């Protein structure tokens, strides 16, 4: 469906003819995609196909690199985030991101959870009890409360990798994001950690729009409801995950998911 004519509220993220160059190398080519709210969309494809680059367009984090040129439209909840009046701070408040390697700050668990909201509000904006409430609620949402409630002042870097990744998700929640971008959030974890993060992401999907880049096709199959397959900067196919893995429309998708290519 053309994103210009699609009703705005049906999709959380829409791009229209999005192109991106790193210097002279074109990493994204004419990407037009509509991503639905409150479900998990996985981005799959071989290394270098542009999936992480596409993900990073959704919060304009690509712009931190030099020599990046972007054309086209990216609309988050109907608003073109490349418009001049868009504040990057506000954008990144509503579009949170979780990275491959957990990146807690070397401060307490408590202060990590509040770090985002503090940087978006003036000092003293919240009373102590409000802050405590936000921390408890965020840690409960990521199933980390029971394990950490007696040591909230401990340094977050002492947590296990799985706990750190949960904390990185918890850190987004006080900002009440609409969209959560995840760039291979389980790749640093062991098998049990992967399973628990997958369960957590599955539980969060009803409240957020989650877009997840993954190298692990098993993970895409297990937890996403929609799946986007990319190849050489283009979207080859976007559909229900079961359709993409059972009955793909495109030959390239078939070759990739059956392991004959990539």
């Amino acid at each position, binding site marked *: 469906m053309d994103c210009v004519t699609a009703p705005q509220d049906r999709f959380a993220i829409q791009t229209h003819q999005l192109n991106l160059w790193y210097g002279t190398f074109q990493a994204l080519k004419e990407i037009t995609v509509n991503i639905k709210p409150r479900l998990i969309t996985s981005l799959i494809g071989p290394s270098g196909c542009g999936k992480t680059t596409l993900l990073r367009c959704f919060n304009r984090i690509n712009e931190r690199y030099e020599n990046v040129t972007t054309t086209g439209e990216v609309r988050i909840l109907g608003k073109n985030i490349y418009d001049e009046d868009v504040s990057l701070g506000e954008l990144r408040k509503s579009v949170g991101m979780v990275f491959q390697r957990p990146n807690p700050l070397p401060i307490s668990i408590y202060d990590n959870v509040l770090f985002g909201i503090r940087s978006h509000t003036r000092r003293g904006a919240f009373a102590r009890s409000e802050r405590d409430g936000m921390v408890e609620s965020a840690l409960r949402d990521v199933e980390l409360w029971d394990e950490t409630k007696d040591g909230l002042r401990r340094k977050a870097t002492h947590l296990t990798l799985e706990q750190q990744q949960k904390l990185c998700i918890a850190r987004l929640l006080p900002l009440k994001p609409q969209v959560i971008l995840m760039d291979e959030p389980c790749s640093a974890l062991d098998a049990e950690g992967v399973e628990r993060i997958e369960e957590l992401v599955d539980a969060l999907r009803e409240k957020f729009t989650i877009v997840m880049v993954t190298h692990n096709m098993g993970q895409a*199959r297990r937890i996403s409801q929609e799946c986007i397959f990319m190849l050489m900067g283009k979207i080859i196919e976007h559909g229900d995950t079961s359709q993409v893995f059972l009955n793909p429309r495109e030959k390239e998708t078939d070759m990739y998911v059956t392991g004959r290519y990539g």
Partner: protein
Amino acid sequence: MPIHLQRDIDFLKKQVLSLCAIVEDQVRLAVGSVLERDAAMARHVQDRDTEVDQREVEVEEKCLAMLALHQPLASDLRLIVSVVKINNDLERIGDLAVNIARKAAALCEEPPIDIPFDLKGMWEKCQSMLHDSIDAMVRFEPQLAHDVCGRDDAVDRMKHDIRVQLEEMMRRDPDRIRPLERLRAVTRNLERIADCATNIAEDVIYITEGRIIRHREGD
């Protein structure tokens, strides 16, 4: 086990149970329409077959999606592959119920005829085999499945005895060949329903014990 697979398996079992409930009901109504000479009931069974077909497709789609998305192994793999086959048998039972209903509709258009054998008793045997085979799958009870397989011979014998009896009646009274032949077709379809229930029970044994017991007579 990943929660998502367990959730899907629970859902799949519910889908199969619900299909089975409809199919059991179809057989009950089809036989009822023969016993009661009820043409409207026979019509209802024929009309409702599209629902059975639609649900069969839904179960198959669910199984295929589960295979593709979860790539299950061991007991999960055996369960899902067997459900594909069980689903097929259930749909077939639905078709056999329609065959019975067609014979009932035809019998309604002819002068009433006494049914000279225990049709209700035969139906009850088939119905309990079907019910128990699905119960064995849902409750994971191989013993119940073995028990169902052991009951098929009695239904076969019943069908054979009825055939001999009906052929004798046809010889004595050639004017009644047509309705008697229709009754014979009803019992043939019922016996096939028992065969399908036995297939289902054999699949349940495969699910629970991992053994394929088909074609092993006399082993």
